[in-house]
């Protein structure tokens, strides 16, 4: 007879068999990273440029990225989009603080042709004023909508304070859109796209001659290695409240300047963060959602930049629970500093985290993402098996000490909106 009260036995995972991408060097020094074992006809290619918002205003970088297909002397934006559509291609452009990424999605039989159209469009873009005007209108509308959301207000206030001495704290405002000139966008394109190719990654079952063709096409860009990231990251904690009476909920964001995965304590901190707010069964979720019902969700995380990073906790709660929630968050942090976590909880977190690392390595695209996310920091894939080792061996005492060292309440910036 089946005894349903007893859990089936589980096995522990100690290593992940990683797939290392092929590396091909372009003439200009930039690299192509490639994984071809995908077992179907889909191909994704990412072009990554040193074209984030650090080097200009956020608005200029975002506009430039979104205007890459806005037309050349020979082709209108419609003709370009139409040509890519006919081949069943999809494009996505994303601009972050440190770089921009142009992602191409298509089927194997059409992908080289799609890349050819794309690169011709990016290299020869003329920035039609009509296209600029329309895009500005769209972006302004989106920002206006965003600025009505309490979580957005809290996030903006938090970032602009934590990074007040560096361009990481520079956010786009409605007036930035008015003052942006076509000339700024042209300059940015020239420097940060035409000579700003950082690398490209290919995930798809391509033939050698297809890779060669893409290699040739991508050689039209230069790599200049211009990105400057050494800024003043001095930080002092504050308390900020942004009133917004018409909203039903308040957003809370609490955190501080921290570090990225290059720091020796980063892997250990990930374990601490998971216990506090990094998974569904975390202390914060258990206390504030499951036991008290103040919120739909609460979590904590570390955001990494090339030379630094920050830690934050965020949630949206019913207005009347705002003060109680902050108090409960503080209690959870102080508990981690006062008492060692139990073996049971630590084992749970170890297994959960390893499962997460495994899941993030599921499939070819995921393997590429894992590679990029260490390679960007100058690390290699051994990082992940080291991470698994840290997760399996960290002690409760180390976690308590980390909480004391890095989660001191007085060092936190606390922002509330609404």
């Amino acid at each position: 007879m089946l005894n349903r009260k007893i859990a089936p036995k589980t096995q522990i995972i100690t290593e992940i068999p990683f797939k290392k991408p092929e590396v091909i060097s372009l003439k200009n020094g930039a690299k192509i990273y490639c994984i071809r074992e995908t077992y179907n006809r889909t191909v994704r290619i990412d072009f990554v440029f040193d074209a984030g918002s650090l080097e200009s205003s956020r608005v200029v970088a975002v506009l430039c990225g979104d205007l890459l297909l806005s037309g050349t002397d020979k082709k209108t934006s419609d003709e370009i989009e139409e040509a890519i559509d006919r081949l069943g291609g999809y494009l996505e452009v994303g601009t972050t603080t440190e770089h921009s990424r142009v992602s191409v999605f298509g089927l194997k039989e059409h992908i080289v042709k799609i890349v050819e159209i794309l690169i011709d469009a990016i290299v020869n873009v003329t920035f039609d004023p009509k296209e600029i005007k329309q895009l500005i209108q769209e972006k302004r509308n989106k920002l206006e909508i965003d600025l009505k959301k309490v979580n957005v207000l809290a996030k903006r206030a938090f970032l602009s304070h934590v990074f007040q001495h560096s361009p990481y704290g520079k956010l786009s405002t409605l007036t930035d859109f008015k003052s942006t000139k076509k000339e700024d966008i042209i300059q940015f394109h020239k420097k940060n796209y035409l000579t700003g190719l950082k690398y490209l990654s290919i995930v798809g079952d391509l033939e050698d001659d297809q890779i060669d063709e893409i290699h040739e096409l991508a050689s039209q860009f230069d790599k200049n290695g211009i990105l400057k990231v050494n800024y003043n990251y001095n930080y002092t904690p504050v308390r900020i409240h942004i009133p917004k009476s018409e909203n039903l909920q308040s957003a809370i964001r609490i955190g501080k300047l921290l570090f990225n995965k290059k720091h020796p304590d980063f892997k250990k901190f990930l374990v601490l963060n998971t216990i506090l707010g990094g998974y569904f069964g975390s202390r914060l979720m258990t206390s504030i959602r499951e036991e008290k019902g103040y919120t739909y969700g609460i979590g904590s995380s570390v955001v990494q930049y090339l030379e630094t990073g920050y830690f934050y906790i965020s949630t949206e709660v019913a207005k009347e629970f705002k003060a109680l929630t902050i108090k409960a968050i503080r209690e959870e942090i102080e508990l981690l500093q006062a008492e060692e976590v139990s073996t049971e909880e630590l084992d749970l977190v170890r297994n959960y985290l390893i499962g997460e690392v495994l899941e993030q390595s599921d499939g070819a695209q995921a393997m590429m993402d894992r590679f990029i996310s260490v390679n960007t920091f100058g690390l290699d894939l051994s990082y992940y098996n080291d991470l698994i080792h840290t997760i399996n061996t960290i002690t409760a005492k180390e976690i308590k000490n980390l909480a004391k060292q890095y989660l001191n309440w007085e060092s936190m910036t606390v922002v509330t909106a609404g």
Partner: protein
Amino acid sequence: MVEFERFTLDNGLRVIFHKDTTTPMVVVNTLYDVGARDENPDRTGFAHLFEHLMFGGSVNIPNFDRPLELAGGNNNAFTTNDLTNYYDILPAQNIETALWLESDRMLSLAFTEKSLKIQKNVVIEEFKQNYLNQPYGDLWLELSPLAYQKHPYQWTTIGKSIDHIKNSTMEEVKSFFNKYYHPGNAIITIAGNLEFENVKMLVNKWYADIPGKEKIIRKLPKEPQQNEFRTKTIVRDVPSDMYIYAFKMPGKAEKDFPAVDLISDVLGHGKTSRLNRHLRKNLELASDIESYVTGTLDTGLLIIMVQPDEAATLEEIDMEIWTVLEKLKASSIYEDELNKIVNKVKTSKAFEEQGILNKSIILSMFELMGDANLINTEIKEYEKVTPDDIQRVARRILNPKNCSRLIIQSKDHA
């Protein structure tokens, strides 16, 4: 081609297995054939509230999440108007943990008052966060009852009001479970690098002794043919106006669904779509315009959503939208344009079918529609659509008398 095997247990449980040798993980996906459309009109939002309660402990296991996390897994769930879907992802060697947990909550829940009380609060906060506290968050709360007058699609999965959630009782929770949560009303899909015979043995081990029950035959009120143009205006604290047009269309398993899906792409998917070209690009009347289908199993909606340019008026936009629609009805679409749209559908479906989680969910949904193998044959139905089909279906659907229009007016402009 997605290959799979199928079997059914004596208690009615349908099981699908898909082997994928490229991943260290396994997915156990459980779909229950119950959604918001099955709710009592006085207890809307119940199917979704119930989904939350499924995590509050089952008859033999006090906590669902912890043992799964201990096995290196994680999980989530979602509720739609048509169905409720639960999935677990974990290292393949630990698959039994998921089967143990899922089979126990299919057998019976713990039904604790505490869990009900807390999950009511959580869902109420979710209601506020996603539907009331967001600009345009209540769009579907307003549009659904305008478009549907008889069919339960007139309410959204979160429910009509917070009160319906507040007033739910433990008795109702129990009777909902008895009615809908049993093997005959579920489809399980397992995907990963496992052997079929082993999967069969494990599923039998954990599910075979769960008693089978009679499957409820659904008798939902059919939405009558719409014979009038409906329009409603609401004023909200939003930065700009938004106009939404909703046209009734066939359900996902019906014959003309692919044609309507393609029509929505022709009209408003991507920058080269007709509405985008005409209203956004050429006339500069809209800052954003898109079209898509809701894809429900019963009568669905083709949606056109417009964010007007600051200087544009409703009358102008309305006129130009109808011009575009009339043109599609009046003259046949060129093969070329149709091919473009079908090519895009092919790419996006190929990408959707990546990863064991997506594949499991899609297989389960198609099995619910009648045959999991639709995952391989569906695209052929899109390829078969002719320019004549597009015109015929457009003429039938894109009419004012089949349309409900919601105007969200910005407080600042009103």
